[in-house]
């Protein structure tokens, strides 16, 4: 047993690390359990901060003096991770890697190829999203080793030997989870288990609440976790039930991965103020615009924290040394703040209003799939409505859906830096209560979360403790059901794509450490060629059993297509290509990843189908 459980929040904008001394055998002081992460904040300047910005800067050899980038664990470091990467990268954006995590779930690109920085300059050495994520994890591991395993005697406490609880968005599909795990392995972390971020946030709340949590939630409660960070929004539902006199928590639903967050808000304000400046004849260059965005963030935080202020001034400094006279002045009024942010991102809408999804044209630029509709309340409405219909079909009635237009949460837990602004939390609660009242439900209760930036890392470390038999464990299994594409055997018709059926290989809620055998089909692997299956998932269909065949997968609204899965059987030069009949088996590992295996029908062959995270639609 490793001495520590280390919780790592590998965030889109910031990473954090928290730890739990399992060997000590008693509850920890959770307020003191976050690692101060050494990082460069200026050339040659090393500081500890509780967050590590998820930014990687790839300098040219001419940019920094020799030794200016050295770290305690790497004197010859040639790249920068953390605060300096973020601040310097704003000046030279084409050498900066940011939002690597969002690329991990983007199935329209080859996620293992060196494609970041996106639109980089010619001589910039590029990295894949997986390698970038591995760099952040490696930095955290080295920071840990520096502090806890720095001497010969303590070398056994190195991160590589500890239990790692690594968080991923609940909306991450099987391929993105697999890639996250790969990044961890590349960073030298061997004993990794994945944990969903909204669950981690709830664990942090459970730890802080202690035994008193039973007074705050009871059987029949439905907890909605709303997590809005810098770049993503993640929604989850957790049901509170009772079994054998004990309170049970089960994660019953997760939402889609929405690329929408605090950064969108700052940009919205900046664009609006920029328009006003242009109208007054003041033009900002790209660097001043970044300065304006930063100023908007400050102004936003100021206005949200003090309800009496009517406006917050913003100064955009000159780039030259003549600061006085060269500084451009503007201001953010409360009216603009409310209109652009509170109303723009959290409008009071009806629960039946769906978010706008613009049709992607064939020429859409291949970049991150940012959400088309910035209204978080609309995404929330769609989530609660769709899940209500889906949960109604579930035989295990963990959540009451009778006579309801949407799932009625009874408690809400906020997470993510965006909710440091009380006004935004209040607006969500207000909108939710309006929906509940109209649907004859009770107002929702807010669970008091602590430290919106560190909750996920803390909760992950606490989960390490829970796994050793303490506290309450959140159950749930897979957040989706998974399907393999099967082509209908039909005569070929030119110009007509034969419809594809979807065979369920893993049911919704499949528990970690279990496996399922798919009833025999006429599948075969051909030696010497890659055999590829199209792969689908659904976060809505709850009752599909293994072996169920769904018609016309491509047009089924409840299914989303993921990266294909494939395997290649090697063939000896002498052997002709021949067909090996196989059966399929799905397994959810203890780590939290999904494996689809091919088992030879009459033989002992076993092959794992790998998720092909290269281009979707690439023909073999």
């Amino acid at each position, binding site marked *: 047993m490793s001495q520590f459980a280390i919780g790592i929040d590998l965030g889109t904008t910031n990473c954090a690390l928290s730890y739990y001394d399992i060997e000590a055998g008693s509850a920890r002081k959770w307020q003191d359990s976050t690692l101060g992460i050494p990082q460069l904040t200026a*050339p040659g300047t*090393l500081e*500890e901060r509780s967050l590590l910005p998820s930014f990687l800067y790839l300098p040219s050899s001419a940019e920094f003096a020799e030794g*200016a980038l050295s770290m305690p664990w790497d004197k010859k470091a040639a790249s920068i991770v953390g605060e300096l990467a973020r601040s310097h990268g704003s000046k030279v954006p084409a050498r900066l890697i940011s939002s690597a995590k969002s690329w991990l779930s983007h199935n329209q690109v080859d996620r293992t190829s060196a494609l970041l920085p996106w639109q980089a300059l010619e001589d910039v050495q590029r990295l894949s999203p997986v390698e970038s994520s591995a760099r952040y994890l490696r930095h955290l591991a080295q920071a840990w080793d520096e502090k806890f395993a720095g001497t010969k005697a303590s070398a056994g406490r190195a991160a590589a030997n500890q239990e790692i609880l690594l968080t991923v968005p609940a909306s991450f599909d099987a391929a993105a989870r697999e890639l996250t795990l790969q990044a961890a392995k590349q960073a030298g972390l061997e004993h990794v288990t994945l944990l969903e971020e909204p669950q981690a946030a709830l664990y942090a709340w459970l730890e802080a609440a202690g035994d008193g949590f039973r007074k705050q939630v009871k059987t029949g409660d439905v907890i909605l976790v709303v997590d809005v960070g810098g770049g993503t929004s993640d929604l989850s539902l957790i049901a509170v039930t009772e079994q054998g006199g004990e309170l049970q928590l089960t994660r019953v639903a997760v939402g889609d991965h929405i690329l929408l967050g605090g950064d969108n808000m700052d940009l919205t304000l900046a664009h609006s103020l920029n328009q006003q400046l242009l109208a007054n004849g003041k033009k900002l260059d790209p660097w001043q615009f970044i300065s304006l965005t930063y100023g908007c963030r400050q102004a936003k935080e100021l206005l949200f924290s003090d309800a009496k202020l009517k406006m917050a*001034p913003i*100064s955009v*400094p000159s780039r030259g040394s003549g600061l*006085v006279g060269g500084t451009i*002045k503007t201001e953010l009024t409360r009216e603009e703040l409310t209109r652009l942010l509170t109303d723009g991102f959290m409008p009071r809408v009806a629960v039946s209003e769906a978010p706008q999804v613009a049709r992607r044209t064939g020429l859409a630029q291949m970049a991150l799939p940012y959400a088309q509709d910035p209204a978080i309340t609309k995404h929330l409405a769609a989530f609660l409505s769709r899940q209500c219909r889906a949960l109604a079909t579930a035989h295990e009635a963990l959540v009451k859906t009778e006579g309801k237009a949407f799932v009625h949460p009874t408690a809400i837990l906020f997470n993510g830096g965006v909710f440091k602004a009380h006004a935004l939390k209040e607006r969500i609660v207000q909108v939710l209560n309006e929906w509940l009242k109209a649907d004859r439900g009770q107002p929702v209760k807010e669970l008091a979360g602590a430290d919106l930036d560190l909750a996920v890392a803390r909760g992950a470390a606490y989960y390490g403790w829970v796994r050793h038999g303490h506290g309450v464990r959140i159950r749930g299994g897979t957040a989706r059901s998974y399907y393999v594409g099967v082509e209908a055997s039909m005569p070929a018709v030119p110009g007509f794509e034969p419809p594809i059926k979807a065979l369920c290989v893993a049911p919704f809620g499949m528990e970690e450490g279990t496996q399922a055998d798919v009833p025999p089909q006429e599948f075969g692997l051909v030696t010497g060629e890659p055999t590829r299956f199209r792969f689908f998932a659904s976060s809505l269909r709850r009752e599909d059993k293994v072996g169920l065949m769904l018609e016309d997968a491509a047009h089924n609204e409840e299914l989303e297509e993921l990266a294909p899965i494939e395997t290649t059987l090697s063939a000896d030069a002498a052997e002709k290509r021949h067909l090996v009949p196989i059966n399929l088996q799905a397994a959810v590992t203890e780590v939290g990843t999904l494996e689809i295996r091919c088992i030879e029908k009459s033989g002992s062959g076993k092959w794992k189908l790998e998720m092909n995270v290269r281009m979707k639609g690439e023909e073999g």
Partner: protein
Amino acid sequence: MAFRLIFDGKFGGQVAHALKAAEQKPLVPKPEAKPASALWLLSALQREGRLLDFLQQNVSGFSDEEVGAAARVVHDGCRKVVQQYFKFEPGAREQEGATISIPAGFDPQRWRLTGNVSGQPPFRGTLRHHGWVVGEVRTPSVSESLDERVIAPAEVEIP
């Protein structure tokens, strides 16, 4: 004060000494690294708050509004630096303007007496300025290779 740090070496030494004396739990510097100095602090104030740009400029020809706009930039940035690396406490806990009593044996470094100063303590008077004392200093460790005379590098934009 920034000017004095550069041109008055003795004062700079005093500041550095005071900073060092007040240091409680600094980040342990590696053998090759040194604790941050006064020049480093000036560089941080310029980088985050454009302090040197502000002080070097002749502000007599500008309106209050223009000076004010620039002052906000300097205030925001320098405040961030100062709050990040230092914890300040007021020297006197009482409100400015309140009557205060200075007991015998007071520390003349911490209490400056003005007005009709005669006789021996205890003194009664009005608190005009509460003073500042550094409670904690947490400056980072700085690499040996860093040329501290470079307060701010010249910036060149490549098209």
